[in-house]
């Protein structure tokens, strides 16, 4: 079976091409050892079965994020039969940079010149034949969104596998650099290395850490020679050797572009206006605020409708179930624990709230707006030791903390991933929103609920500020491409949404189901009563809440919105104002907001950050919530709320 990999910069249209190639025959696999998913799919072409892998966007083999690392690993070590390099025809110079790196490694490349429509709209004419001639590989012009060039791509790729491609040696660096690359290449030819010698020589001069390790293992002399040569280059140019090589590679790109692209200047009015507004120092923030407010309004309006519908459905299902199987301990445990509690509960949050939220978010992401939001939020994020990109997982957190933790992979360093994941678990997810609105919002007024959201933001920032001081190391800055604004593709939006919701279903669902059964079993056999009794001094004396709240908090570890459901059950009424004072409701809501990430989030934390950090974060949040609750209770008593 043939294996083709799609690779290229971010936002060039790889996903669109991948979807067009594989249709619905796709599956997501985990990259061993790393938590980045790879999409792969199968396709039949001229009686051949071909596996296609969609790799995360990459700008250079000198990677800058975990996702790029995966792509690099895949291309370098897994050696796909053909790399289908998708490039944005309207930004050819920058895109060719990676193409050249790729061609240093392998000649089995097909270049897809995608987004030809946009290039044309920008007044560019590209001489495809000449480009193919210069690069020495097939070049296929494409407009992926219209399906143009897809078949030709696969055809070209299959043809490449049939021929023995010759390594392309045309791209010469400047004389001083080229000479030293040759020297190192000659040296490397004496050893048996798993890569083309010239590729490895260049990588070594660019100070690629993995290649250095490999070289060291083979023979220390290689490393010494590489360092000497790199220093010579650095001295000639008064610049770091790796920067010199980048500059010279770009010189080649610019020369190629000069030879194949003809450009007229054209002005694009509409898009430019939106672009102008979207990052404007006043309108930009207004727009951002408006969009966020719009999303929340929409999600909670449609969400409550869907939630009510689902509740009715499960009630109907439940009555049917008990009528058929009768009431007994076992049927109760199966129903309450597994079906209604586990599946129903999990879906009850996902379908109404998380799903619509993520659809909207994916639309924003695909349109190129989220990158602009990250730009606007960067300086704020810097105050808490993060940078603009962290805004994305934090916003994801309002839907569900699980995909938010997973989304922290876009951060570049371990330190930032930890910090961003930690902070996103403090963000009130849709389950907590149910509590905030259902207790404080309904019985104390919407302004109290809004105040709690604001208070939550203050806490997130305060904690971020403190933790960023405590964590070793310093933050990095933002370096991010801002993609052009575009009309999103429905299929890609759905896929992106599915991808995130799937994080929830895969990580959260089994844990919620298992946990739900466990708690129902414990409850049925009366074990929970003891736990509740043990907790009661804390709940009653410290937080000033009724003892039954202990129960609800235990259930809440499964899913935060269960706290309200259980509270109503234990208090015997859903009219909380009749049994709880406003202060008690406030303390309850704050404690629920912070007291522990739910089991699913803990599982996500373990997966993303490891046991130690997950336990530390959980421990911190329990202590913090109890402390905060106690303080609010006491301050409230004095202030007479």
């Amino acid at each position: 079976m043939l294996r083709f990999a799609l690779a290229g910069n971010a936002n060039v249209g790889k996903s669109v091409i991948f979807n067009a190639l594989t249709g619905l025959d796709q599956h997501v696999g985990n990259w061993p050892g790393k938590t980045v998913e790879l999409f792969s799919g199968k396709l039949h072409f001229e009686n051949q079965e071909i596996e296609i892998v969609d790799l995360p966007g990459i700008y250079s083999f000198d990677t800058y994020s975990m996702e790029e690392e995966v792509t690099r690993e895949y291309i370098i070590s897994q050696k796909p039969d053909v790399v289908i390099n998708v490039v944005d025809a309207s930004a050819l110079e920058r895109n060719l940079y990676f193409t050249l790196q790729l061609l240093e490694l392998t000649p089995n490349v097909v270049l897809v010149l995608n987004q030809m429509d946009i290039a044309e709209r920008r007044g560019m004419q590209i001489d495809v034949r000449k480009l193919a001639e210069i690069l020495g590989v097939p070049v296929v012009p494409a407009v992926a969104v219209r399906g143009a060039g897809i078949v030709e791509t696969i055809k070209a790729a299959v043809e490449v596998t049939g021929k023995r491609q010759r390594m392309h040696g045309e791209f010469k660096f400047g004389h001083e650099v080229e000479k030293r690359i040759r020297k190192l290449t000659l040296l490397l030819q004496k050893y048996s290395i798993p890569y083309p010698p010239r590729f490895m020589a260049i990588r070594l001069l660019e100070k690629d850490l993995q290649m250095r390790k490999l070289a060291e293992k083979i023979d220390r002399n290689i490393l010494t020679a590489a360092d000497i040569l790199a220093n010579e280059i650095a001295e000639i140019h008064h610049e770091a050797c790796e920067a010199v090589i980048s500059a010279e590679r770009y010189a080649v790109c610019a020369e190629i572009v000069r030879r194949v692209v003809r450009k007229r200047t054209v002005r694009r009015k509409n898009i430019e206006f939106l672009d102008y507004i979207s990052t404007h120092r006043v309108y930009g923030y207004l727009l951002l605020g408006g969009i966020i407010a719009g999303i929340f309004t929409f999600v909670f309006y449609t969400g409550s409708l869907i939630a009510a519908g689902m509740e009715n459905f499960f009630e109907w299902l439940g009555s049917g179930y008990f009528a058929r199987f009768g009431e007994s301990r076992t049927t109760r445990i199966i129903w309450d624990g597994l079906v209604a509690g586990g599946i129903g509960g999990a879906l009850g949050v996902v379908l109404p709230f998380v799903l619509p939220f993520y659809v909207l978010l994916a639309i924003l992401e695909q349109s190129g707006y989220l990158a602009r939001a990250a730009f606007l939020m960067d300086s704020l994020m810097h105050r808490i030791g993060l940078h603009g990109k962290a805004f994305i997982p934090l916003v994801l957190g309002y839907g569900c903390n699980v995909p938010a933790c997973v989304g922290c992979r876009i951060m570049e360093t371990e330190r930032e991933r930890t910090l961003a994941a930690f902070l996103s678990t403090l963000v009130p997810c849709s389950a907590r929103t149910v509590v905030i609105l259902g207790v404080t919002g309904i019985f104390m007024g919407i302004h109290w609920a809004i105040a709690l959201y604001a208070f939550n933001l203050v806490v997130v920032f305060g904690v971020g500020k403190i933790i960023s001081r405590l964590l070793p190391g310093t933050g990095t800055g933002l370096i991010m491409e801002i993609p052009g604004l575009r009309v999103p593709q429905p299929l890609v939006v759905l896929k992106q949404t599915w991808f995130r919701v799937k994080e929830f279903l895969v990580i959260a669902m089994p844990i919620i189901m298992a946990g739900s059964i466990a708690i129902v079993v414990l409850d049925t056999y009366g074990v929970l009563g003891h736990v509740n009794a043990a907790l009661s001094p804390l709940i009653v004396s410290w937080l000033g809440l009724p003892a039954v709240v202990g129960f609800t908090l235990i259930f809440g570890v499964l899913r935060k919105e269960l706290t309200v459901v259980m509270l109503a059950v234990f208090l015997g009424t859903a009219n909380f104002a009749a049994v709880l004072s406003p202060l008690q409701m406030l303390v309850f809501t704050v404690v629920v907001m912070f007291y522990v990430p739910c089991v699913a989030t803990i599982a996500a934390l373990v997966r993303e950050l490891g046991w130690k950090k997950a336990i530390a974060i959980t421990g911190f949040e329990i202590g913090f919530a109890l402390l905060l609750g106690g303080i609010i209770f006491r301050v409230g008593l004095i202030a007479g709320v």
Partner: protein
Amino acid sequence: MEKTEREEEYLEEIRRAEEDGKKCTTTFLAKKLKISPASVSEMLKKLKTKGYIEYSPYGNVQLTDYGRDVGKQVLDKHRVAEEFLLMLGLDETEIHEEACRIEHALSDRVFAALSDFLKNCDKISPLSEMGEGETGVIVRIDTDAICRGRGHGRGYGCAWGALKRLSDLGFTPKTVVVVKRKAPLSGPVEVEIRGTTVCISQNYAKGIIVRKTEG
């Protein structure tokens, strides 16, 4: 025709007097150049035979067109050298002497490059200080500024390869950049580079040194 440093010195001084509208006599030159009037007379004779100047005994020294060109050029070199030394942080009192030595060593090519550089000098600034809509050409990347205070995660480069990432995205010397947007509160800078839009944090923008150009 070969001319010596001394000759250049004389022509420069005569030209300066001419510019200032002062009468240039043997005594005046002797005072300016701190040389005995006798040696001055001797040198003036030499300059006259070479066709640089015209003069009558006890009268004014006048430059020929040819002599004026030479004198003017030396004077320009002197001024450029002074300006450059001032920029390097030398004291006003010492720059004249130093410039007198440098002016003779400057070839026309170096002189042209240096005056060009000085002309553009006020246009050189970090990317972070350019205004929205301004265009510039990257002069160099200030590694120290980019790495300053930021984590040195990798053994090579700094800030987890931020430096390399910037050059991989095309921030290399001689590249044209257009500042599209600057976020408020020392936020990031959005720039157009090599047909793409990239935004980078303020701390990185500080290390990218550009020369402003028109349009």
